[in-house]
C-alpha cells in the first residue's frame, strides 16, 4: 500500500510540476471471476486480474486523461505527461474553462463488509454450485434451456487528488443471473431473476438459490399456458418493484444525470426532456424518487465517488416536483450547487462519468393487495425484460416477463409477451398509488459513455399504479 501511495503521489506531483491546475489519480487492483453454465455445461469460467492507474488533469480549463498498466515510476510519469499534453491541446477549443465546485478534502479508508471472501470459496466449488443451480432450473421437460451467469468482483482503490484527498475503498460485488427458457411447439417463453449485493459469496449461502432457480423454471413453464397480452390503449397498470426498477432506471435515473441535462451525452445516449424544468411539477404526488449510494448491501453502494465527494441521498423528485440532478463537481459548479457524489468509473482505465448509484421510487401508503382490489380493469405487470427509450427519455417501451389481467379487483388471466409504452410525463402524472414496502434490485449492466462503461447499479421502488398503453406481441 505504501508503494501505491508513493505512485499516486508521484502522479499528482508530476502533474503539478508540468503546470496542471488540478489532478486526480485512481490506483486500482481488480480481481474478477465469471462463470456461465447452461444446460449442464460450463460455457465460460474465467479469472481475471488487472491493476493500473488513471490520471485526470485539468490544464488551462480543459480535461486530459490517461491510464496505464505500467506501474513503474517512468510509466506513471509518462501517463501524466500524456494527460497533460492532450489537455493542453484541447484547451484551444474550450471557450468556457472548466470550473470545479469546491469540496472538503477527505482522508478516509473503508471497506464493504464481507463474510465469505471470493477467494475463500474454491473456484471448483463455485462451478459445482452453478451446475447445481442450473440443474434446479429444469423443473419440467418443457424447460429446454437453463442459464446461470455468475460474476464476482473485488476492487481495491486508492483515490488521491491535488487538493489533498486520500480515500481507500475495498469493494466486493457479487451477483448471479438465473434464466430458464421453456418451449412447447413453436412457443418459447423465458423467465429470469438476478440475485446480487455488495459483499462476498455469503449471499449465495444466505439465500436459497436452488429454490429461486426452481421458481424461475416453474415460472417459465407456467408462461407456456399464459395468454398473449392484447394491444390496448390507456390501461391502468400496477407495476411490481422489479419492473419499477427498470422503469426508474430508464426514465428517471438516466435523465437525472446532469451531463445529459447539459447536452453532453447528445452524441449517442441523448439528452433529457426535463432540462430547464427544475422546480416544476411534472408528476403526481407519488412521483418521489431518490438516488442513494449509502444504502448498505446494494450494488450502487459507496461512501465517496470518484472525485472524492462524500456520498449522500439525493432527492431527485419530490411529490411530483423535479428537485435535483445527479452531479459531478463540474456540473455542480454550472448549476451553482454543492456536488452530490455522482461521478464513477468502472475501472482506472476510464474517466469518471455521472452515474446512478441506487435510484428508486419512494414508498407509498398502500398495501399492494389493496391496489389490486381497488382496480376494476387493468394489468399487473411483473418483472423487467427489455427497454427501448427515446433520446430525450420521453417516450418509452419496456417489456415485462409476465402479467395478470385485473378484473373487478382480482388477478385473473396469466399474461405473456407484455410490453408497455407511454411517455414519461403522462406516466408520472398518472401515478395514483404506491405500495408501502419498496425493494432495490441489482442491475449489473448499466451502459453509458464513449468508450462504453458498463456499471452495476441498484434500482427499484414499491408497487406503482399508473396508466400506460399495452403493446401486444408482434
Amino acid at each position: 500500500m505504501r508503494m501505491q501511495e508513493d505512485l499516486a503521489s508521484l502522479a499528482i506531483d508530476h502533474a503539478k510540476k508540468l503546470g496542471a491546475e488540478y489532478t486526480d489519480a485512481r490506483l486500482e487492483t481488480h480481481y474478477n471471476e465469471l462463470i456461465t453454465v447452461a444446460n449442464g455445461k460450463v460455457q465460460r469460467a474465467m479469472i481475471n486480474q488487472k491493476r493500473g492507474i488513471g490520471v485526470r488533469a485539468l490544464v488551462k480549463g480543459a480535461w486530459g486523461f490517461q491510464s496505464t498498466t505500467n506501474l513503474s515510476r517512468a510509466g506513471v510519469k509518462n501517463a501524466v505527461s500524456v494527460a497533460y499534453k492532450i489537455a493542453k491541446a484541447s484547451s484551444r477549443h474550450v471557450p468556457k474553462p472548466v470550473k470545479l465546485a469546491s469540496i472538503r478534502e477527505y482522508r478516509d479508508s473503508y471497506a464493504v463488509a464481507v463474510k465469505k471472501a471470493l477467494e475463500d470459496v474454491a473456484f471448483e466449488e463455485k462451478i459445482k454450485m452453478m451446475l447445481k443451480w442450473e440443474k434446479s432450473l429444469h423443473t419440467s421437460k418443457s424447460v429446454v434451456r437453463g442459464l446461470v451467469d455468475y460474476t464476482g468482483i473485488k476492487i481495491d482503490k486508492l483515490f488521491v487528488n491535488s487538493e489533498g484527498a486520500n480515500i481507500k475503498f475495498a469493494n466486493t460485488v457479487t451477483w448471479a443471473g438465473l434464466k430458464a427458457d421453456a418451449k412447447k411447439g413453436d412457443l418459447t417463453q423465458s423467465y429470469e431473476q438476478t440475485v446480487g449485493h455488495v459483499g462476498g459469496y455469503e449471499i449465495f449461502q444466505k439465500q436459497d438459490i436452488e429454490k429461486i432457480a426452481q421458481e424461475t423454471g416453474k415460472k417459465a413453464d407456467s408462461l407456456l399456458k399464459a395468454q398473449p397480452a392484447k394491444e390496448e390503449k390507456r390501461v391502468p397498470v400496477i407495476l411490481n418493484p422489479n419492473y419499477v426498477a427498470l422503469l426508474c432506471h430508464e426514465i428517471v435515473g438516466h435523465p437525472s444525470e446532469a451531463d445529459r441535462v447539459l447536452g453532453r451525452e447528445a452524441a449517442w445516449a441523448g439528452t433529457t426532456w426535463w432540462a430547464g424544468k427544475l422546480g416544476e411539477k411534472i408528476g403526481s404526488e407519488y412521483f418521489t424518487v431518490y438516488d442513494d449510494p449509502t444504502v448498505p448491501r446494494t450494488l450502487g453502494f459507496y461512501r465517496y465517488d470518484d472525485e472524492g465527494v462524500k456520498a449522500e441521498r439525493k432527492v431527485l423528485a419530490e411529490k411530483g416536483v423535479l428537485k435535483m440532478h445527479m452531479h459531478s463537481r463540474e456540473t455542480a459548479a454550472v448549476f451553482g450547487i454543492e456536488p452530490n457524489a455522482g461521478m464513477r468509473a468502472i475501472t482506472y482505465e476510464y474517466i469518471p462519468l455521472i452515474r446512478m448509484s441506487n435510484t428508486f421510487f419512494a414508498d407509498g401508503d398502500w398495501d399492494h393487495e389493496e391496489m389490486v382490489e381497488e382496480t376494476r380493469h387493468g394489468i399487473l405487470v411483473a418483472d423487467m425484460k427489455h427497454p427501448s427509450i427515446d433520446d430525450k427519455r420521453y417516450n418509452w417501451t419496456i417489456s415485462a416477463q409476465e402479467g395478470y389481467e385485473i378484473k373487478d379487483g382480482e388477478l385473473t388471466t396469466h399474461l405473456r409477451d407484455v410490453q408497455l409504452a407511454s411517455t414519461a410525463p403522462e406516466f408520472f402524472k398518472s401515478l395514483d398509488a404506491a405500495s408501502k414496502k419498496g425493494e432495490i434490485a441489482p442491475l449489473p449492466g448499466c451502459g453509458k459513455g464513449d468508450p462504453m462503461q458498463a456499471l452495476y447499479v441498484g434500482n427499484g421502488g414499491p408497487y406503482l399504479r399508473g396508466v400506460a398503453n399495452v403493446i401486444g406481441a408482434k
Partner: protein
Amino acid sequence: MVKTKALDLKGVGRQILKFGEQLGADETEAYVVSNRVLTVRLVNNAVFEAKGVHDIGAGLRVLGRGGIGSSSTADFSSNSLKKAVQAAVDASKARKLRFKYSFPSPAKTPKVSGVYDTRLAKLPGDKAVELAYDMIEESTAHSRKVVDNAGVLNLVEFHTIVMNSHGLIAKDDGTFFEASLTATAKEGAKSSEGSESTAGRSLRELKPKAIGKKAAEMAVDGLKARPLKEGTYEVILDSEPAVNIDGYVSWLVSPMIAKLYYPLFVDKLGKQVGSKQLNVLDNPLMPGGVGSAPVDEEGAPSKKVTIMEKGVLKNFVYDSFYGAMEKKRTTSSGVRASMGVGVSVFPGKNYNCEPIPLPRNPHIAPGDWKRDEIIEDTKEGLLTQRFHYTRLTNPTRGDFTTVLRMGLYKIEKGEVTRALQKSRIIDNLLNILKNVNAVSDKLVIAGSWGGYAHTPVIRTKAHVTPV
C-alpha cells in the same frame, strides 16, 4: 497517439507457454495484447475531454486432465504470469469437458491488406484534437441554425499475438478509428438533430468535414419535420439502420448467444428466415474491412462464411471450442467478447474474455439496385437514416423496436418529399427480414457507438408509430 517503448508480446507469450508446461497443462494458449485508444469527446461545440488508455494484457487458456481453464492478467511480471497460469490450471480441474478439444493447429495465414495504418498509429494527440474539432467547425459553418454539436473521435492501435503449445504463432496488428457528430439545429421554438458517423482502418478514410456537413444538413432538414401518421410502411433503411439489422443477425448466428440469450434462430438452420433478396456474409478477408484480420482471436486463419443465402439460414459461425462441442469445424470466428462487465467494442482489448463464436466482419451482400432507384421505386414510404436504442424486446419471439430519432423522411411517388418527426418502429425482426424487397449495390461503412460494419441500403416493411 503517444509512442511508448515497444513491448515484447512474443516473449510474454513464450513465458506463458513455459509456465503452462511447468505447471502440468497438456496444452496452453496465450493471447497477448498491447492496445492504445485515444478518445476526443466533443460537447456543446467544444472539446470536452481528451483521454487515452494504454492497456496491455494476456488472456490464457490451458487444457489438462480433460478440463479447460481460463484466466487473464494485465501484469507482465514473471510472478504474475505464473500466478495467472496457475489460476487457469486450477480452474481446468473444475471444468471438465465432455467432448474432445484441442487448441487450433498452426496453419498458413492469409494476408489482409489495409488494416494497419502507421499514420493513424502515430498521430499525435494535438492533431487528433484538431481533426475532431474540424467536424464542429464544418457543422457550424454549414448553417447559422446549427446551435450545438456533440461527437467523438476514437483512434485505436492494437497489436495482438496468439501462441499455443502446438507451435501456432499468429499476429494481428491493426488500427481503427470511429468518428461521429450529432448536430442540433434550432429555429424559433423548433429544434432538430442530425447525425453522421463512420469508421475505418486508416487515416485517409477519415473525412471530418464531410461528417460535420452531413450532420448539419440532417439537423437543418429536420426543422421542417411534420408528424408521421401511424401505419405500416415500405421503409428504406439507409446505412446506419441497415447496420443495426445486420448486427442483430450477427448475434443470432453465434451458437453461444443463440443458446444462452437470443434463441430466435435456434432450430432455423436451412430454413427461410429472410426474403430471397437477402444474402449475409462474414468476410474478415475484405481489404480494409472494419472487422478484417488475417486470423481470429484463437489464431485460426480467416475465411469467408455464408450466413444467409437467398434468405435461407445457411450457417452458424464457430470458434474452435464451440465447433468441437457441436462437432463442427471452426469458421475462424473466435472473438474474445462477452456480454459481461468491462467488455470493450474496440479490437484487441478483450483479453479478459474467453473466445466465443461471433462473425467478425459481417455484412449484407450488395444487391442489384442503385440507392436512388430504391427511392424512385417507392410509391409511398419512409427513408430512415438513424436508429436509436434498438432492441429485441422479446428475444425468443423477435419483437423488435427502435426509435427513429432523426433523419426520417417521407417518400411519395418516388421522391423524398419532407422530413418527419421522431417516430418508433414496433414490429418483429423476422417480419422485417422476410419483407426485404430491395438491396443496394454498394457497401458503405456505418454504425454507431462502437458497432460498425459495411452495409448496403435495404428496403423492407415495418409498422411505424409517432412518439
